[in-house]
């Protein structure tokens, strides 16, 4: 910097003040950080398909007494598009009722919370099971 100044003798306007050096310093950290992180991720990137994990529990309210809370997580290495989940009330292997959850996108490592409602009281079923119906690569 000092040798540059001596050579060119820039006008007052061209010399950077503390604010500009601070902004530059923070910017360097951000740019180097982002490029470094992306380079690291590129090197370790593995294209594994989406892997959908579903967790659910009863979550009744006064207005929706038969409501279930459904958390859908993508544990795979790619975003899943058009994820369809079905929750079924079973009684002796017979489906009493089923409800679906649809998610337009489920990014890698993301968890989406949703709720499904039934007409039938889940207490009348002997089990509640889920099925990940389908999803696709975006």
């Amino acid at each position, binding site marked *: 910097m000092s040798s540059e100044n001596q050579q*060119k003798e820039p006008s007052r306007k*061209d010399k950077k003040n503390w604010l*500009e050096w601070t902004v530059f310093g923070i*910017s360097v950290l951000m740019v180097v950080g982002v490029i470094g992180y992306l380079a690291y991720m*590129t090197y370790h990137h593995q294209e594994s398909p989406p892997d959908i994990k579903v967790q659910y529990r009863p979550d009744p309210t006064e207005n929706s007494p038969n409501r279930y809370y459904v958390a859908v997580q993508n544990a795979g290495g790619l975003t899943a598009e058009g994820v369809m989940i079905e929750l079924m009330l079973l009684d002796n292997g017979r489906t009493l009722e089923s409800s679906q959850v649809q998610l337009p*996108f489920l990014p890698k490592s993301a968890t989406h919370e949703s709720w499904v409602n039934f007409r039938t009281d889940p207490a009348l079923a002997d089990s509640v099971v889920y099925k990940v119906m389908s999803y696709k690569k975006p």
Partner: protein
Amino acid sequence: MASEHDAKPIKDTLQEYGKGVAGGLLFSFPLLYTMEVWWRGFTASPFALLLLVLVTFFLLIAYNRYAGLRADASWHEIIIDSVEEMGIGFTLSFAVLAMLNRIQLTEMSVEEVLGKVVIEAMAVSIGVSIGTAQMGIEERSGKHEDEEVNEKRSAKAHVAVLALCGSLIVGGNVAPTEEITTIAVEASPADILVIALVSIFISAMVAYFINSRREERAKRSDFVFHLVFDTCMSYSIALVVSAFVLWFFGHFGGVGTWLIFAKVIALGLLSSLGASAGRLLIK
């Protein structure tokens, strides 16, 4: 480092950043409000994001070198400015996406947040660069300096850099949308031919207006040469930029050669307008 009283006043610096922020938002708000761009934040591979950051950084350096505020700036000043512009881009992109509730630090993975911020930040940082240069014209001083600037900036490299930025800004705003796919899928080869011819005609028309101003100074043969050269350069740059942004937004995955070609030509109409007329707005 320069001593306190030698340096540029803080007020000037704040003004410059203000212009940059205004320009950054002006050029990137359409993309900050586009769903397909947010989605690309979590579907793009780290390699695609890395390539986007490097291409943008190259463009910032080129824009600051050939079209930025100070024509006499040294390479080291240009690189410092470009890094600053990208840093402002990251910050603004993060702030706007957080304000619009498009990123949530607790519920989203680092990759999703970073992907969204990085993509939007690239558009913002080019806007910051243009905003800082365009809204600070009054700071250019001296007739001698202006002549030097004009001489240097009429070079073809300068025109090419402006065409690159212009086509990226205009074409980039439409590239993420599904409409490009719809147009390309439903178009017949004749439709695509018409779009290509109209694009070339617009590029030629703008090149004619630009070159006719120089006509008094140039010979007739030079005029024809410049007209053909500018038209070809604008349209070629527009097609290359269209192909890059369409590839980045995942338009080429699993589609045939004809559809890729049709999409590039369809977006090329906008990009060529950006490359020819758009560059006049940001020079």
